[in-house]
């Protein structure tokens, strides 16, 4: 999807075109859910974040300018919502929660990793999730979080060092 396409869809959604907003949702939902899940560590909470994020997006469509990258804008809202939602720690029972888990050994390691990432300070967690899991370039991470590029580099290193320390028995 290119920028022109984004601009057209956002413009249409901003004019109240429900179909355009639905398209926006379809396109960006996986991204929002992914970053929300990584930050909150919980699929149900991540679903809440998705809802909140798109509510915010809907309310702010008019504020978006085509010269700004849509992904950056949506990431920013999603990260903020995920951090807020994590703080609220709202949980709902999952309708699919009764499905069997994957292999126990891997699951235990995955849980440890999720726990270690979740225990990072907010900024470190956000930087780490966006660079490591979402594969965003450093410059875009800086743009999303509104911090300097140098700060992003240092923060990423601090986050990885902490994770290395907390997970050293698994390496």
């Amino acid at each position, binding site marked *: 999807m290119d920028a022109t396409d984004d601009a057209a869809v956002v413009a249409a959604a901003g004019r109240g075109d429900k*179909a355009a907003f639905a398209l926006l949702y379809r396109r960006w939902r*996986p*991204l929002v859910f*992914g970053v929300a899940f990584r930050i909150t560590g919980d699929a149900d909470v991540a679903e809440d974040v998705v809802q909140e994020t798109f509510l915010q997006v809907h309310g702010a469509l008019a504020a978006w300018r085509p010269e700004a990258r849509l992904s950056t804008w949506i990431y920013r809202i999603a990260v903020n919502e995920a951090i807020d939602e994590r703080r609220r720690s709202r949980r709902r029972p999952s309708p699919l929660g009764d*499905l069997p888990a994957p292999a126990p050994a891997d699951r235990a390691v995955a849980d440890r990793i999720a726990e270690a990432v979740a225990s990072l300070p907010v900024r470190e967690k956000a930087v780490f999730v966006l660079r490591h899991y979402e594969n965003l370039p*450093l410059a875009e991470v800086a743009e999303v979080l509104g911090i300097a590029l140098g700060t992003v580099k240092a923060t*990423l290193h601090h986050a990885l060092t902490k994770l290395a320390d907390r997970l050293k028995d698994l390496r």
Partner: protein
Amino acid sequence: MSCEESRERITLSLYGDLSAAEEAALARHLLACADCRAEREALAATVSLLRRLSPPVPGRAQPDPRRAAPTVPDRAQPDLRRASTADPGHDRPDLRRLAAAAAILVAFVWGLATLSAPPRDRTAGAPSGHGAVNGPRNDSAPAPADVASNSGAGESMSAEERLLAASGPLLPAEEDRLEGLAAGPDAALALRAIEKLARDGSARSVPALRAALARPALRTTAFEALAARGALAEAVLIPALRDPALRRVAAAALARRADTAAIAALLAEAARGDDLCRAACRAFPASVALPVLVGAAGAPATREVAVELLLTTDGDTFRTTLLRACEEDPALRAAALARAAHDPSDPRAARFLLLALADPATADAARAAIAFVPVRVLRAAIAAGLREQAMRSPLAAWLTSRVEEAAARDLLASLLDDASLRPAAARALLACGDLRPVPILLRSAAADDIDAFGTLSPAPRRRELVRALRARDLRPGALQAIDERDTALWREIVPFLADPASRGAAADALARAGADDAVPYLIPHVARTRSGTSVRQALTALVQVDLGEESHRWSQWWRSGALR
């Protein structure tokens, strides 16, 4: 470079965020600093661990969501019936990282050569983090070199090596031996034994493969082999849909089962955003899929994905079933039409819109849904629909409402050969100045067609009539189309009085045109013949006098100057 600077750069290097010059500087520092090398190994191992064993995002099909287009055309979807290997999306190397890793390697080699320092150990030339940075690797599985190092250690190992390297069907004793290796403590040998059993084992190897499912290093291979043999129950396959290493094989195996429980499980995952499961749902036959999809379309949580599948799975049965369900469920109707209007360039979505247009129960909603979709986008589907008798009339009506679009005009023009639709299509086209219907209407000369021609505005009407009067095949229709608006054309018509074949029609035309000037040209043709009677009637209509069937009485009357 200080150690403090170096350590931040190590992290950046692991993510491919250093320039080539920075990588080279870091490599030189690492050669000289054992502490930083240790730090690099620890961080690289951590990145590797995080890449391999982080909990998967539920439903995410690809590692980079920005590259995973949510609206990938169905043609690009994998053929799940043939899929038998792990999701390649998880193993795809990132070229940027490959390049960065290559830069580090080059820098190390360069550094070693320059300093003439002998390598201290094998990992110095190829840091352990490389594999992790380049992409996930199953560390519990042995690298080829590791396996090779295990071989040739004695006569018994050589026999095992021969067995593992052989191809073709296995003898029972060989199968027993492989099962023993698969259950043994040596993970490398066990994996090779399982691979061999998976490839060449008979049905009796199934228990060994099942046992291997419990060992993480063997699980994927054993799972694939069991799935290929159809030896996995749904109770095993369904949870595996959430396991990144197994989900592709599990989805393909479920698709092959073709029962309602299998598609329901895939649909549940698809509703969570899993495109792989969504694609797998398309592999089910309509008889199995339709009841599940219609049920799911009625529930808000699964409506979106069910509608998508009903709309875009090959076969009109899916769309007509969706349409029937829409007739009874307004919310579903709105969702289905909105989705179809979203991407009407998909011929199946376009087809659904047209089916909905042709169905009285959904026609109004369909018209509203596609109000802003250009006809050219739907053109192929409309052209196909127009070939179906039952759809021609509603489509023609809808096209008429869109006549300002060139594509709609082209499609309407293609309807002009249908006598029942021709007048309406022609009126719409003529109203916007499209003259393609003119020769068709005049050649037909049916009353409705002539009426339709009558809607043409004055200037083109005069021009087209003059042209048509000069064309033998259009002349009868043109004469029939003449009316009081065409008085000025009397000179064009009078010559046809000379031809008995066209005399009657010409006389009628002159009468309808109220062409008083043509009276002296009509009088010589009054006679007892059929065409002569038409001339007499035309004269009577024009001068309000009837002097009978004798031409000389009319001539006398004319010479008396009665009219003038």
